[in-house]
């Protein structure tokens, strides 16, 4: 297996792939802990200001959040198919599937930008120093919206990083002949993309669905 250019302390490429995959999982776990901080802020603040959180969620555009959920789930499916195609060295299919995944990522960011623009146009920005918060003077509402921008913004940043990763992989798939190292890199990039989807799976109910039954 030396033709695969495995770093020699690994011996074989399989061992190297195993080690890098585990390393990536450790990185993903640290990403979960980053969002854990934001979700902890959410749970503490929500207990403190239940009315404000219900009102804020009622104010968010549920249809945009829901469409974006479907978009990210579909992109997770296409990137999983890309890994499968790469595993059988079908690089043409891999390229197409990575391309579709990237388009879905851009669609997600498009909808998110639209929603941010809608909020900012009516003054529901972070910080709470606009006329919007004079009209909607529920105690804690600025806390809700500040957390909303911080958390969904951190997530959107991860989508952008994921798009860069997918873009680099796509360029490699187009340029390089099929090889196990490249297939493995597609697998690692896909793991990161899936994590971005998993985080959104939790942000969707927390920021769009649980409006306390009010709406």
């Amino acid at each position, binding site marked *: 297996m030396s033709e695969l250019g495995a770093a020699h302390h690994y011996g074989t490429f399989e061992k190297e792939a195993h080690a890098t995959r585990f390393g990536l999982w450790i990185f993903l776990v640290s990403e979960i802990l980053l969002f854990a901080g934001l979700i902890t802020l959410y749970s*503490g603040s929500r207990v403190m200001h239940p009315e404000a959180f219900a009102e804020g969620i009622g104010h968010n555009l549920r249809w945009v959040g829901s469409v974006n959920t*479907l978009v990210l789930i579909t992109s997770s499916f296409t990137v999983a198919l890309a890994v499968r195609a790469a595993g059988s060295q079908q690089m043409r299919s891999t390229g197409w599937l990575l391309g579709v995944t990237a388009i879905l990522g851009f669609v997600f960011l498009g909808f998110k930008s639209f929603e941010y623009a809608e909020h900012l146009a009516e003054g529901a920005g972070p910080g709470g120093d606009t006329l919007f918060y004079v009209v909607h003077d529920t105690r804690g509402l600025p806390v809700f919206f500040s957390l909303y921008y911080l958390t969904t913004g951190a997530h959107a940043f991860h989508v952008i990083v994921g798009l860069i990763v997918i873009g680099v992989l796509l360029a490699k798939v187009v340029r390089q002949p099929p090889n196990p190292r490249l297939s493995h890199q597609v697998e690692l990039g896909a793991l990161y993309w899936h994590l971005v989807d998993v985080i959104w799976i939790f942000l969707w109910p927390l920021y769009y669905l649980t409006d306390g039954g009010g709406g």
Partner: protein
Amino acid sequence: MKHHVSGRALVLTFVGLLLLTAISWLTAEMHLGRAEMVVALGIASIKAGLVILFFMHLIEEEVSTTLALLAALFFVLLLATLVAAEVATRSPVYV
């Protein structure tokens, strides 16, 4: 690369995720009151489990990988619930 997770399993996972998303949306429209958060996060956890097990192939990874993930999830739960419990049980004087 191994192929323990079949193409069929990937398709079924995707269909399952779409169904659970629809159920989550419907239950949110039903205004369940206090049960709302439990139901929504319960469905989200099942969806995340599907993605992690099949799309991310955790089902064919070694125990060490699962252990790292479970440790992180345990700390998330511990942090979020203990902070919420602390805030919820504060004396009104300190709120």
